[in-house]
């Protein structure tokens, strides 16, 4: 690997280090342990979404529905926990345990992701269109399920995943860290991981080599849905409420983290670790701008520019390679 390629690979890490150094000089609160923990806690939801988004983008696709799937999965879990599922024909109610509600939420995410996958692979819809449609469907279903009102008072057992601590570290950080480890291994050391990179590198070549491209894509979108559901459970548990408007705009933060982390929007290049760096960069940026008392409106502008610069850097790098 030559120096230029190494620099390209280390770009996100260098950007993160520069930001950390600058912010620690500009704000005396930035390096405080409580603030560092806060940053990790805040990025944990985006990290769950972004791991799934990384897999999707690695195949050359995109998923615009993760924020809406997050909201629906959280709402379904909260609704089942709070109200159960009435089976009037049998005269019984299935009263879900916190564990059962979480499993149901994840299954909902998985099913929605599969639906995305089927729309893209069987009906040949462009991922942008298919997931945009799912965004609307999932938002509508969330409103129907909740009646437009938050589902509250979910209890401490359910809340543990979002507001609990293990060994002094908040649970959302443990969950997102575990997912990073699992999906790092999946992407680097399993057949599915290799197929994902192959599909993103060249779909035709992958198909010619006998790999079932559609199945790979189905898995990837289903996993993205399940991961969005995990993020939804964390958000719901943390707030002790399922807000039907939860996750609005989260897909943009997630795509931004993936792109800033060095994953190419055209697929085939990128890594889970890069996405972790991307999430950290966005988290540190948000936190730093807040500590420096920058207006939230300017924060949006700055974040937009950072994304543009990251995509431009990727594009220029790609052009040179071509």
């Amino acid at each position: 690997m030559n120096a230029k390629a190494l620099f390209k690979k280390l770009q996100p890490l260098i950007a993160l280090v520069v930001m950390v150094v600058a912010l620690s000089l500009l704000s005396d609160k930035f390096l405080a342990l409580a603030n560092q923990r806060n940053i990790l806690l805040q990025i944990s939801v985006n990290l769950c979404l972004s791991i799934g988004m990384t897999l999707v983008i690695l195949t050359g696709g995109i998923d615009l529905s993760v924020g809406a799937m997050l909201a629906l999965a959280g709402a379904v879990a909260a609704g089942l926990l709070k109200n159960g599922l009435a089976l009037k024909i049998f005269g019984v109610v299935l009263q879900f345990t916190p564990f059962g509600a979480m499993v149901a939420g994840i299954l909902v995410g998985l099913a929605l992701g599969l639906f995305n996958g089927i729309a893209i692979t069987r009906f040949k819809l462009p991922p942008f269109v298919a997931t945009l449609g799912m965004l609307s469907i999932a938002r509508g279903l969330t409103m129907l399920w909740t009646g437009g009102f938050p589902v509250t008072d979910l209890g401490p057992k359910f809340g543990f995943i979002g507001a609990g601590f293990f060994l002094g570290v908040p649970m959302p950080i443990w969950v997102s860290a575990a997912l990073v480890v699992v999906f790092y291994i999946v992407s680097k050391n399993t057949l599915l991981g290799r197929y994902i990179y192959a599909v993103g590198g060249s779909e035709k070549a992958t198909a010619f080599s006998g790999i079932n491209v559609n199945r790979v894509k189905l898995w990837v979108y289903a996993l993205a849905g399940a991961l969005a559901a995990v993020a939804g459970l964390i958000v719901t548990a943390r707030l002790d409420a399922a807000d039907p408007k939860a996750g609005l705009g989260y897909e943009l933060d997630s795509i931004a983290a993936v792109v800033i982390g060095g994953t190419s929007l055209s697929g085939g290049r990128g890594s889970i670790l890069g996405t972790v760096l991307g999430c950290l960069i966005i988290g540190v940026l948000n936190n730093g701008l807040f500590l420096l008392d920058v207006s939230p409106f300017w924060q949006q502008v700055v974040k937009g520019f950072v994304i543009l610069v990251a995509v431009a850097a990727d594009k220029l790098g790609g052009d040179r390679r071509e």
Partner: protein
Amino acid sequence: MKRFIQWLVAIVICAIICWLFPLFHVVPLKTANAEKAAEKFDATAFAQNFWAGKLLPAAEKAVSTDVLLAAIQSNAAGAKTNYSRSVGLSDTYFYFLRGRGKVVSVSDDAVCIAVTENSTNAEIALQTGLIFGDAIRDGTGLLNASDYPNSQDFNDISAALNQIVETNVLTDLRKQARVGATISFAGCAEVDDESSDLHPLKVIPIETKLE
């Protein structure tokens, strides 16, 4: 055959997990409905008990308008420190007060009162328009948000207290208030903007008595 065994193992593992950590319990519909009704927080009943049992007795110990207005006049920041309450880190603060004065004007939205002797200026404005906000709930310090794990219940208490003000206090006050009458009152004032909320002090009444 290998695939069949893999699926079988996966199903057995899932079954064991579900047996150890059940996903749900099957409950008869009637039992579930009865449990739900028993669990539901009745904000109206709670507010009525709180009103009669705690709020009105506490009004006797509220700060007097003579003391409070003099303190605000001389040092508004000091009056805030000594007599107000606020929730969390909010800049909005509340006074819980009682007093006696002469009605100087009556409008659709307020009954204005002069409490200082020989004054004809409106120093207190008892609110008689639409009552909203959390002044009664948060202004006395008798209720604490952290005692209510469900924030919706806490919000419902506020709405129920405001409803009691509307029915128990304002209906009579609107009918009976007339300029020149002497009135005793107790209530809560919410100060969000000192420039407009202190002069006159806008008070939501919980008790009034016209003489």
